[in-house]
């Protein structure tokens, strides 16, 4: 229930756009993209190295991603806490 905004962004791309993933990431100001070994499409975009400043820019980036024709959907990545045992 915490739902804190983070600078982690996950997108699902249209089939035809999978090969443009890295290009798309760079165009939208992300460092690179990482393919997950499961599921069909969630491709997390890796944030540049300054997480704290980036956190305010993320909503704006998310909107631009949603308008990008190659993007099928943008998955929210709210932050929550985990504890060492």
């Amino acid at each position, binding site marked *: 229930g915490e739902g804190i905004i983070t600078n982690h962004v*996950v997108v699902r791309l249209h089939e035809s756009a999978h090969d443009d993933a890295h290009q798309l990431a760079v165009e939208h100001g992300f460092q690179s993209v990482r393919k*997950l*070994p*499961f599921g069909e499409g*969630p491709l997390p975009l890796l944030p540049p190295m300054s997480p704290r400043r980036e956190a305010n820019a993320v909503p704006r980036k998310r909107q631009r991603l949603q308008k990008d024709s190659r993007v099928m959907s943008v998955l929210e990545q709210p*932050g929550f806490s985990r*504890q*060492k045992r």
Partner: protein
Amino acid sequence: GYRDLNEMEVNISDPLFNKQWYLVNTGQADGTPGLDLNVAEAWGLGYTGRGVTIAIMDDGIDYLHPDLASNYNADASYDFSSNDPYPFPRYTDDWFNSHGTRCAGEVSAAANNNICGVGVAYNSKVAGIRMLDQPFMTDIIEASSISHMPQVIDIYSASWGPTDDGRTVDGPRELTLQAMADGVNKGRGGKGSIYVWASGDGGSYDDCNCDGYASSMWTISINSAINDGRTALYDESCSSTLASTFSNGRKRNPEAGVATTDLYGNCTLRHSGTSAAAPEAAGVFALALEANPDLTWRDMQHLSVLTSKRNQLHDEVHQWRRNGVGLEFNHLFGYGVLDAGGMVKMSHEWKTVPERFHCVAGSIQDNHKIQSGGRLVLTIDTDACQGKDNFVRYLEHVQAVVTVNASRRGDLNINMTSPMGTKSILLSRRPRDDDAKVGFDKWPFMTTHTWGEDPRGTWVMEVGFQGPEAQRGVLKEWTLMLHGTQSAPYIDQVVRDYQSKLAMSKKEELEEELDEAVERSLKSLLSKN
């Protein structure tokens, strides 16, 4: 049935080895001799974890540590906190990020190099997945970690989870669930990734069934005992725990702590908290995988049930009980302490268990009031999908998917009794949980206590309140999910030790199968006449 300690030559010369009572307990720090993981027998048979990779998902690993460097698997390591392949812990002056390095030592610290102690699987490879050291956790970081290189990493060890404050109900989100499902189905070439979880540090105020990672069927949830068999003060308890290993947890005596590697080339005697439980178990599973690389994720759970021992574990709160097929369990320790010697011997000749099936045994969807001073009793009669393709005859996991709200969630108490009479505590009282809004929404309470039982018949659920003040609530849904095999899982196994749980279970299965065969033939005779 224990062998004399002197019989087992363990030629390990590392300076801290004699302090690692969880490996060989000779009574150090008022401990109980013989109460350990019985690694000496496994090592004596030649199993030390060769060819197996264990990933520590935590705050990083000091992979330059002289006791870890030789076993470090750099290719299988990654840092999801900073997005680079170097999961070295971030420095803080209070060494806050020593957690992962300590866990790594318990699994894979090298032997006979005159540094610190030794890992349970001292010839295994350890990978670091740094994923706890960023401002917040996100679903994508967890999912990326749990699905990292599943064809290279065999075992994932996790000593973290939702906050153990006795008022949290939380678990894996969407992508992480997908990652776990993918791991157990496709990891290790289809044999399934082995996920090991430390059950929690919340003590008697918490219930690890409220931790969706620990209570998942896809993770092996491990609790911990201290060196004399008592519970650690921070131990939680729940019906989803499968077995136990060791940690410190009650005594001031530093020698009763867990000795392992520490940051920057150091050693420690004081690795505390239940976090040591998971890597110790991961080490035992690595020995089993060396004995039989074809073990599936389900085989590992069956072997844990069959070879874990009550030994001298003592729980003041919950009695040890037997389930309907004679398997002894405890609500905190599960089926007991892992026995590495027993496990590698059984693993070596183990035949993978039959196919797993899933049956929705029944569902109650209407609202039922719960009042203080009384108990709501509901029943579901089921034939466990008999006659259909997904008939479940021999249980593995059982889930009660429950939706319930209450004026004080923490005072809720839920029990479930199987047709063979085994009562599982699905939810204990959590005095600090004052939630009156969220409740439990389709929460999968899981029990391992009915392992091996025949699920056909009447299941009984009792819901009530425990606490000083009157409360009220509404149960809106109870769906009973059965998971297990159609054919007897132990009937084809090789029995060497006729005192073992395997021998008992196999005999039980033979009798059951014989009875049912006779019954079938009688019915067909009668119908012909």
